[in-house]
């Protein structure tokens, strides 16, 4: 389905979220790590398994783009244009942000990441994921918003050791 949906897709089940042609989530994310707060606006635009993540500040300053093209990852900002083998390491080395990027591609959609085991899953009364544990991360889905026939995540808190990540999604486009 195209990002400018002529026909609003109406999804029936969460499984369809695994095979979406394209989707975009936009909002804010904040990290708390070792007594330091970082926050940024973000938009995550995904087509198949490839994605473009755009991070920027309140006035649009400090714009950073992280691209996944096949299995190559590139980061671009006013002072950077680098490739790397893993997005997590690339992002942390260049922006200091600790983000489980590969897993977030699934967690943002409110579904467990596929390549790793889901140690604990809890669902709320609507059947949406309320808690999930994967790869040492404890993810809580605080709220959902109706979108395209399903409940899509609106507020997500992910914690691991001394990192806390808060994602506040303001819009979904599928």
């Amino acid at each position: 389905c195209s990002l400018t949906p002529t026909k609003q897709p109406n999804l029936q089940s969460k499984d369809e979220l695994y095979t979406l042609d394209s989707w975009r989530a936009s909002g804010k994310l904040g990290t708390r790590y070792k007594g330091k707060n970082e926050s940024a606006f973000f938009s995550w635009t995904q087509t198949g398994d490839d994605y473009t993540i755009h991070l920027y500040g309140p006035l649009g300053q400090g714009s950073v783009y992280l691209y996944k093209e096949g299995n190559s990852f590139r980061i671009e900002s006013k002072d950077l244009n680098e490739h790397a083998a893993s997005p997590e390491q690339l992002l942390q080395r260049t922006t200091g942000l600790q983000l489980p990027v590969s897993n977030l591609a699934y967690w943002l959609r409110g579904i467990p990441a596929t390549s790793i085991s889901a140690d604990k899953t809890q669902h709320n009364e609507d059947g949406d994921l309320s808690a999930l544990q994967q790869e040492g991360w404890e993810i809580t889905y605080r709220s959902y918003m109706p979108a395209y026939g399903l409940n899509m995540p609106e507020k997500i808190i992910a914690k691991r050791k001394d990192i806390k990540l808060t994602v506040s999604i303001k819009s979904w486009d599928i």
Partner: protein
Amino acid sequence: DDIDALIGKLDQFNTVSGKAMQVITSADGEEIQKTESEFKILRPGYFYWRTLPPYEQIIVSNPDTISVYDPDLEQVSIYQSEKMRNSPASILSGNRSAIEKQFKVTKSGASNDKKSTSFELSYLDTANADFKKLTVTFKKDQLASIVMHDMLDQVTSITFGKVNTKAALTPAQFEFTPPAGVDVIIE
């Protein structure tokens, strides 16, 4: 010189409040984000900027501290003012020395009807600059817009409206107390 002309415009108001519409567009013209804010400024040194939902965020700065509160993220960050990361806010709330220390100012033109005048500002410390150019425009001596171009040619344009330069503002209105239950970080 040109900085005197800019200061001359800014000095016509010690207090200003109003609304601001901010639009961020990418280099290829795609709208990235549009937000509306309410602002209050008491010059020099006091600045309040509240972005309305859905992208709610409150920035309160006074000569000592800058507080940034994000209700969605339940985070408050408090910085020391001198560490004010060369934010364009200092153009509006700064005095002459604050602006002189940060920006090169060139008057970039006045409309033939003399109704609007623009100033082009560029950061002196280019290494840490977030923007390569800022254009501040006054219409009939009133603050009209600030347009910022960054190094990736992304454009942030802020248009001011309902500008009131008679608002009675006092420093006490620029204190921020974090709400309960929020992560507060003193940077």
